């Protein structure tokens, strides 16, 4: 490994070099999207929901598509390993700290990659529950609102930035 890349943890680099669970699922139960090309990384999460022996709903398969950097790819790969086979309830309890525990410390400016990956996953579950016309847990609704608002905020900021740039010219 070249020195320049050392700020990234071994775990991230391991997943980046040999990513698992990246790509698309045919006929997914739901898709979740997070991030925006304007600010950088974009992550799409595909889930296939099934049932375990106890009849609880679990993530039978999960895949991520990534337009993003080393950390975004590494975390996406790691997250798919973390959540496969887990129940929806368990996944809703996941926080970015659970991911950071597995990745080891990240450069501060890269922490948002872990939030983005989790957002994409939670969005997929939100969309699944909406599709099934189920009740949306309060926590999940809040995540969804934040994701949507962030996107709006980015777009607004970008428009303002373009206007300012135009004015300066």
């Amino acid at each position, binding site marked *: 490994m070249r020195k320049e890349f050392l700020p990234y943890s071994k775990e991230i680099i391991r997943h980046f070099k040999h990513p698992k669970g990246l*790509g698309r699922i045919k006929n997914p139960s739901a898709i979740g999207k997070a991030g925006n090309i304007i600010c950088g990384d974009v992550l799409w999460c595909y889930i296939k929901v099934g049932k375990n022996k106890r009849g609880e709903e679990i993530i039978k398969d999960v895949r991520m598509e990534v337009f*993003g950097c*080393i950390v975004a790819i590494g975390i996406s790969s790691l997250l798919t390993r973390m959540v496969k086979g887990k129940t929806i309830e368990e996944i809703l309890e996941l926080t970015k700290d659970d991911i950071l525990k597995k990745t080891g410390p990240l450069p501060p400016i890269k922490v948002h990659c872990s939030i983005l990956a989790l957002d994409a996953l939670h969005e997929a579950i939100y969309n699944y529950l909406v599709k099934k016309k189920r009740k949306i847990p309060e926590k999940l609704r809040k995540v969804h609102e934040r994701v949507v608002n962030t996107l709006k905020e980015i777009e607004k900021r970008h428009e303002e930035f373009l206007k300012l740039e135009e004015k300066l010219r």
Partner: protein
Amino acid sequence: MGMKVYMDYAATTPVDPRVLKVMRPYFSKKFGNTMSLHSFGREAKKALEDSREKIAKVINANPSEIIFTSGATESNNLALKGVAFANKKKGKHLIVSSIEHHCVLDSARWLEKQGFEITYLKVDKHGLVNLAELEDSIREDTILVSVMHANNEIGTIEPIKEVGKICREKGVYFHTDVAQSFGKIPIDVKKMNIDLLTASSHKIYGPKGVGFLFIREGVEIEPLLHGGGHEFGLRSSTVNVAGIVGFAEAAEIARKEMKREAERLTKLRRKLERGVLKIKNSHLNGHPIKRLPNISNFWFDFIEGEALVMYLDQKGIAASTGSACSSESLEPSHVLLAIGLKPHQAQGSLRLSIGRFTTKKEVDWVLKVLPEVVERLRKISPFKGKWS
């Protein structure tokens, strides 16, 4: 692992063995201080002045107009700040192009904080400054114009001869940063009406930590470093003789081999570009013709540059990117944005810069590996053939 291929010569270059050879005695045998009166000092002083002559010859300057520094960053800081502070009486306005290296732009921004006014010149989609806009921007109180010779990211060569002519006619100092072009394409400070010029050693197979600023006789400038009065009082600090001797040797080799090397590199670069552009949804950045022989900048749709560079690194290929993810600020390259790329396009940028030790075989290896890596990243990208 297979081959190791270095394609980041625009970032830095290895020291040429011929350069290292002439430097060696100056570390422990000929170690004198150029300011000392004794034979050790005189020996060092002679090496310094011989080097100054060699360097001056490359740009058609007088030796006394060359001030050795620690590198291009220091030279650019000295040029902008030194001229600004020495010419306050004339005015407080400076003009720089918007695609200058950070050391020029950040010096300009710092000067803004000190009460100077800066005009940032726009560039077109190829990265060229507009001469009419430059002419319009020059005011009564303009003291300096700084436009680089060739851009470090996209390789575009600016019309500095024309810029110099305009500046001379208007009576404004003209500074140019030639860190990327020095020793690679011809430069003549007299014909090009250059008043100040920045160059660096480590871009031309010399050691790191050495550069120079050419200051035309008569230009008013204040030093940044005060002290023992080295370098005609413009740059105090015990002189880095070994580094300077190496720089001068590197410059002389570059001068002698310039024509042949430029032809060889241009051929290799064209081969590289023809091959890379066969990749679907790939694009060339920078000027199609007015470009350095050794720099190619591309962008690939739907993928991100940091990941691209790292996967290339895994295959032994060293390259660089203007992606936001690879920068400390999480902002994409200011150069790529200035030539009109959208942030998500700049994200997928890749710079391949070749040099003295690049071979045809290496280009072939890159042309084999790069399409595979691009494909690998596109497979995992949410964007398939279109941005949506």
